């Protein structure tokens, strides 16, 4: 048996707790039944209890299964064991939440019984798996986020633990929102949207929610495994992240409402719009301390590719994908925009004065990504970086939102290319403005790099 699972079972299942959970939950559901004499109310109470237990409590347990180890000083002992990353990952994920699932499944069984008694048993075949995979996805995300924080060298304070749980709950809300999609769209006046088309296949929205949750649960577990392997000092390479990037691009493509007769540039646009956020996600998901980059540079100079790949930040493949897609979309758009209809559609989607040139816009986009990378690294390469992620995000919000907004509001459109990609009167200005910014940031970065090297008083490494 998985030792980590067994240890968690020992910790969580005392005879008292085994008896107490069904007694308390049973009393609550019985109260609902006797007070209202309605199976629907019992079903709602059970569903509510399941949501609270599996999502709120479950994500907290999934976070604490690692946070508690670190706080208690037992994590190093686990890292010193012979448990392989996969065994550790699923042992923690299922073991840490085992008692939660004991309570949640009791609630879920009550919910199922109530639904059958209410004559709505037919929907259970999809609803139950949705509820289970949704909670598993939220819990896996919670463990994933806490592993990300540990990997970034963060101290797991109450705030960071709450952040991980909050992020996981946001993912959990996706499932709930998707299930409620038909009634939501009806209330918002869009009619009942209870069908979703994905790669030409029409799914009932609940089936598609289940499929999506299963797919993303698979990726979340894969990510937990990879991060756990990193914690256990097993060498990592960025292939899984690259695969996830391609998966997300494909997933997005499947939802595209455009047909084969539409311009290819338009059909590829969602892929670009998925690749760019993934680049920023990768930029903030890993530690950007200068040591990693110093050794990356060291091994790169010596063409030590095995070490280079294991140190390669995840933003590198993401940047390459986003840059390639930018160029491809721009090149295709040039030929696609032969018809006026396409020009109008492109302009509408990009919300930018396209006459400046698509290629220029694509290059500007890449330069802005490089500038932002420089800003993030500049802050992280400080002698004593503090709250570097927060500071970097703040700077980016100021640059894109506040400065860009102020310049636009003031009507100083000639300055806009400095703050927004692809906006400008001529292609040269659209490219030159972010290029100057990149040069400036690179200069500052080089100075900080040199200062840090002097601080290390480096001798030639072996």
């Amino acid at each position: 048996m998985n030792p980590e699972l067994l240890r968690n079972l020992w910790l969580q299942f005392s005879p008292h707790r085994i008896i107490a959970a069904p007694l308390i939950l049973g009393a609550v559901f019985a109260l609902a039944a006797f007070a209202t004499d309605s199976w629907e109310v019992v079903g709602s109470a059970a569903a509510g209890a399941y949501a609270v237990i599996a999502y709120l409590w479950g994500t907290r347990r999934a976070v604490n299964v690692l946070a508690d180890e670190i706080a208690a000083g037992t994590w190093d002992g686990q890292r010193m064991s012979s448990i392989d990353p996969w065994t550790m990952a699923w042992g923690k994920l299922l073991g840490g939440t085992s008692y939660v699932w004991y309570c949640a499944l009791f609630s879920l069984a009550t919910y199922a019984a109530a639904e059958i008694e209410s004559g709505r048993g037919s929907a259970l075949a999809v609803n139950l798996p949705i509820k289970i995979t949704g909670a598993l996805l939220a819990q896996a995300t919670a463990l994933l986020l806490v592993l990300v924080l540990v990997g970034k060298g963060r101290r797991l304070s109450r705030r960071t633990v709450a952040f991980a749980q909050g992020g996981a709950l946001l993912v959990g809300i996706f499932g709930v929102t998707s299930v409620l999609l038909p009634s939501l769209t009806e209330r918002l006046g869009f009619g009942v949207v209870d069908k979703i088309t994905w790669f030409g296949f029409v799914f009932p929205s609940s089936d598609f929610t289940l499929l999506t949750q299963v797919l993303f649960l698979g990726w979340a577990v894969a990510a937990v495994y990879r991060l756990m392997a990193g914690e256990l000092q097993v060498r990592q390479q960025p292939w899984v992240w690259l695969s996830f990037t391609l998966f997300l691009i494909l997933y997005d493509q499947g939802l595209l409402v455009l047909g084969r007769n539409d311009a290819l540039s338009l059909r590829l646009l969602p892929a670009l719009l998925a690749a760019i956020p993934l680049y920023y996600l990768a930029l903030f998901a890993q530690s950007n301390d200068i040591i990693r980059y110093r050794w990356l540079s060291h091994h790169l100079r010596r063409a030590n590719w095995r070490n280079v790949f294991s140190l390669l930040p995840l933003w590198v493949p993401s940047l390459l994908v986003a840059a390639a897609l930018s160029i491809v979309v721009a090149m295709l758009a040039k030929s696609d925009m032969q018809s006026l209809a396409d020009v109008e559609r492109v302009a509408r989607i990009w919300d930018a004065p396209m006459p400046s040139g698509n290629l220029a816009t694509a290059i500007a986009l890449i330069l802005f990504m490089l500038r932002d990378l420089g800003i993030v690294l500049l802050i992280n390469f400080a002698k004593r970086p503090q709250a570097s992620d927060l500071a970097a995000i703040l700077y980016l919000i100021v640059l894109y939102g506040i400065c860009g907004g102020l310049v636009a509001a003031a009507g100083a459109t000639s300055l806009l290319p400095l703050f927004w990609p692809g906006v400008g009167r001529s292609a040269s200005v659209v490219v030159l403005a972010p290029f100057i910014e990149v040069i400036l940031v690179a200069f500052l970065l080089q100075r900080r790099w040199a200062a840090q090297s002097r601080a290390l008083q480096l001798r030639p490494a072996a």
Partner: protein
Amino acid sequence: MIQVEHLIFDYPGHRALDDVSFTIAPQTITALVGPNGAGKTTLLRCLVALDRPGAGRVLLEELDVHEAPREAHKRMAFLPDFFGVYDDLTVRQCLGYRARAHDVPRERRRAAVERAAERLGVADRLKDYAGTLSRGLKQRLAIAQAIIHEPRVALLDEPAAGLDPEARYSLAAVFRELRADGMTLIVSSHILAELEDYSTHLLAIRDGRIVDLRALQQIETGEATVSMQLLLVIPDQRIAAILANIAGVSDVNVDTQIVRFNLAGGARVQHALLKRLIDEGLPIAEFGPVQTSLQDSYLALMRKQAAS
């Protein structure tokens, strides 16, 4: 047993280990000493593959620990300075969990738990919850957990911190027993008197660099050079010349009745030398190795390093 080659480890703005290389012989207890911030903990964590160095490698019997950390952990044990035990598990469960986590085969697991508990003196507490144990017993439990898989090497970071003198004394006995059973130990501590009780070697680190690695005791086969001292009843002018002509003797220093010199060789050589000196008619009152405490050696070494 352990071969460390050109290890470099950096923190932002600070090089914690700077081209560190050394070799640890099997079945020895090496005292890892150095001032605060010297790099002791970082070195130990790199040795057991809990942290990955930027450059260099650590070989454990030819196995590169950073290339195969899980395999290395089967042969190693580590007790960090801030260790923890599972307070809500019994001592038997704590040990049973670690035996499973180290792939101890099912049929040997019970025996492994009992042997580890016996070795560390917690066999009578197997049914107690770990949270109810005293600090000293928790320390013993933590060490029992760490070595339950019978590793070849155990590294312990400040294992005696917070222990009372009695507990420290019994811990020293445990380390000697582990060594006698064939284990190689590296123990980091600030309490030099305690290290002296059981250490065979001294590994001194300062500012991320190894400043000394040497044997502290004449080990069984001991052919190492030993500092000797003899006391004459009355001063004798012939002593310097006689010693200078004896093979293996070097660095002779005569201070009236007290004579110090280095002697290469073990107990037999010392016996032969003493016999020769008495045969020469020298009035010898005392003869033996210089008793220098670890603390004296350490302080002298650190002063020398600071001066250089």
